[in-house]
């Protein structure tokens, strides 16, 4: 027995495909950054809603048999599978067993499989006892028709939806931050209700025909203190009425207290909740910008392309500037971009992130650059530097582009004086605003242009000026490449021409890819 378990555990912990399968399932179920999780979630929500609808409809109307089968076999089976998968991915037992085996071999002591299994199972059981796991388990049951009482478990299918309602999670999270106040309140409520209920029972049990048990009296007390007042039970003696007056007043006090506690909890957490939402929203995009600092540069950046920059988030440390950005209608988060935790919240694995370091301070910009690169080297960093001396440092820090505002402006002035006509033309080309522009054509594997020789493509016929090929970092830019150069997957072609010529060229040669 022991041998068998060990054998299985070792095999599993060695098997790559088992590990990848497990991590795939884990990602798809639990990792909000996984792009496919959305679809799993949506289908489960669909099953929940249909099954709840069927169960409710069934109460009064007969339903066709196939629908019942769908509910019993399909939905319940899927929920069962989901539950089992969740339990499965929660903890890894096999590596624990394998580790224990290795240790015992190494130390030469007896191999104690029971202890390890116990520890592993313990973790699973711990998971099974969490509220969401219990809900998942109970949500499987309504399928069992013969026992009608089991239908009450349909409620758990509704509860299952809670997993997908982020606002509910946040709600409980907010409330749990005020646990102490709310517990005090609850305790006070229980105390008042019990006291009043017992008092009324003792005083009116003989005279009041509606009060037959302490439960009736306590029920009355709760209905009264909550200011609901059904009126099915009411005090008949003066003493009883006095008690109700007292608990009505204390009830009002308690309700207002509870309301204020909850409201203050929310207003404290509101900013945080908003920020979480912004991050979640931005992480769903395939490509987005993170802009550090809300200063003049950022304002100008947005002013130039009003409404065109959609997927972005601004990180700003200064509360005043954050406020200003909010007023201007931007998605802003009050966070320190130089902290590792801040940047690691963003989905750097699945999305293409470009980070703009636009603060005034070189030290801060370099720090943010390093931070971004340490979170993921895939993040593209465009950093602002104050002077040319800083460029080396930024390059060392890994910035992909370095922007020197004063140098850009100085060069502009110099060109405006020394080459006034060319200045305008070249400026228009670079900005893409004039009739001609320089554009980049990205070659992909399945493009027609890929694997073709340079002289096979007649750029002139398209009224384009072919400037060169950029093959990526580490390759020098090929200015006027030789006629025998072959276009490769990943090449970027630089061409100059009118926008329509470039578009036409892309249409012809990129065909299906666009």
């Amino acid at each position, binding site marked *: 027995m022991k041998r068998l378990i060990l054998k299985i555990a070792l095999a599993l912990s060695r098997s790559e495909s088992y590990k990848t399968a497990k991590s795939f399932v884990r990602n798809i179920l639990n990792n909000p950054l996984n792009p496919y999780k959305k679809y799993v979630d949506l289908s489960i929500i669909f099953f929940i809603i249909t099954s709840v609808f069927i169960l409710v409809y069934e109460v009064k109307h007969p339903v066709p048999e196939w629908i019942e089968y769908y509910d019993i076999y399909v939905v319940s089976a899927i929920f069962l599978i989901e539950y089992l998968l969740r339990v499965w991915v929660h903890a890894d037992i096999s590596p624990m067993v394998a580790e224990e085996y290795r240790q015992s071999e190494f130390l030469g002591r007896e191999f104690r499989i029971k202890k390890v299994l116990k520890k592993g199972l313990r973790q699973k059981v711990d998971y099974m006892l969490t509220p969401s796991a219990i809900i998942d388990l109970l949500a499987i049951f309504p399928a069992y028709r013969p026992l009608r009482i089991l239908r009450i478990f349909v409620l758990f299918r509704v509860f299952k939806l809670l997993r997908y309602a982020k606002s509910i999670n946040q709600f409980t999270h907010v409330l749990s931050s005020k646990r102490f106040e709310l517990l005090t309140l609850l305790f006070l409520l229980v105390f008042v209700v019990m006291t009043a209920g017992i008092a009324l029972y003792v005083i009116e049990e003989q005279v009041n025909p509606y009060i037959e048990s302490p439960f009736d009296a306590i029920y009355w007390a709760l209905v009264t203190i909550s200011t609901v007042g059904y009126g099915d039970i009411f005090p008949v003696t003066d003493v009883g009425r006095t008690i109700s007056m007292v608990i009505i007043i204390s009830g009002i006090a308690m309700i207002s207290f509870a309301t204020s506690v909850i409201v203050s909890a929310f207003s404290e957490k509101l900013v945080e909740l908003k920020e979480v939402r912004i991050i979640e929203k931005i992480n769903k995009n395939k490509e987005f*910008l993170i802009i550090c600092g809300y200063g*003049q*540069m950022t*304002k*100008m*950046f947005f*002013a*130039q*392309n009003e409404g065109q920059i959609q997927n972005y988030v601004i990180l700003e440390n200064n509360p005043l500037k954050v406020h200003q950005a909010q007023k201007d209608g931007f998605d802003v988060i009050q966070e320190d971009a130089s902290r590792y935790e801040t940047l690691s919240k963003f989905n750097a694995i699945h999305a293409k992130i*470009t980070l*703009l370091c*636009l603060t005034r301070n070189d030290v801060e910009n370099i720090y943010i650059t390093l931070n971004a690169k340490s979170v993921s080297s895939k993040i593209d960093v*465009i950093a*602002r530097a104050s002077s040319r001396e800083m460029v080396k440092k930024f390059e060392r820090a890994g910035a992909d*582009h370095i*922007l020197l*505002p*004063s*140098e*850009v*402006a*100085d*060069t*502009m*002035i*110099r*060109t*405006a*004086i*020394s*080459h006034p*006509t*060319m200045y*305008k*033309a*070249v400026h228009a*080309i*670079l*900005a*893409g605003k*004039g*009739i*001609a522009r*320089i*554009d*980049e054509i990205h070659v992909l594997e399945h493009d027609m242009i890929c694997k073709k020789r340079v002289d096979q493509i007649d750029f002139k016929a398209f*009224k*384009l*000026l072919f*400037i060169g090929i*950029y093959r990526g970092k580490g390759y020098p*830019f090929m*200015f*006027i490449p030789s006629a025998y150069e072959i276009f490769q997957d990943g090449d*970027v072609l*630089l061409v*100059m*021409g*009118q926008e329509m*010529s470039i578009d036409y060229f892309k249409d012809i040669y990129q065909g299906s890819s666009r």
Partner: protein
Amino acid sequence: MISSSSRVFLFGYGNHGKPIGKGLSEDGFYIVIVESDEKNRQQAVEDGFEDTYLVDVTNDEHLMKLDIKPEDQLVCVMDDEHLNVFLTLSLRSLFESCTILSISDSIHTTQKLKMAGADKVIDLYEVSANRIHSILKRPVTTKLLEGFVGDQHEISFREIMIPEGSFLRGVMSDEYNFEQHGVLLVGMIDQELGNSFVFATTGINHKLDSGDTIVCIGREEELNAFENLIIQTEEGGDRS
């Protein structure tokens, strides 16, 4: 193209004045430096500028004494924003026909400088933000051509005027193979069309003439060689 009589008056030799002064003198301009701060003026003298003045720029009489001619270009790049706006305003009222260029360090100043009468205002933030947009849209191009007249990058633009008797005279722009010289023709400035810029890719086959200025893109060495070739062949003319 650069008339010897035209001078550049550089007001301010600080953060911006220094690199601009250096660049313009490399381009062959005669620079006059005007400063209100003795330390900066001293710096300019050290950097080799001969014509430097220490002037209270808020005083119109002092400005009048500077001997500014109508064809001179005035560049206002004082470190103090407020002074810069004031100076632009004074210069505009004193010298109607001069071209005034100003640099602006903030969004608010740009508007004021324009109102003060500057012919061209370079807004530091505007040009930088522009640059960011082009980095985002066309990263390779921007990296390659960053500071297209700057000297630290390999590929740049160059204006070349075709002199009398050059071999390019009478050549059709579409038919001539510029690539054999390692350069590409981007466009030309046509005198007949009132100094407007004509792009090479508009599809118009243009006959080059002496006096036209062509704009080429290429590596520094090849551009130099090509420029020499154009100027040298003044007598010959049958090389191609």
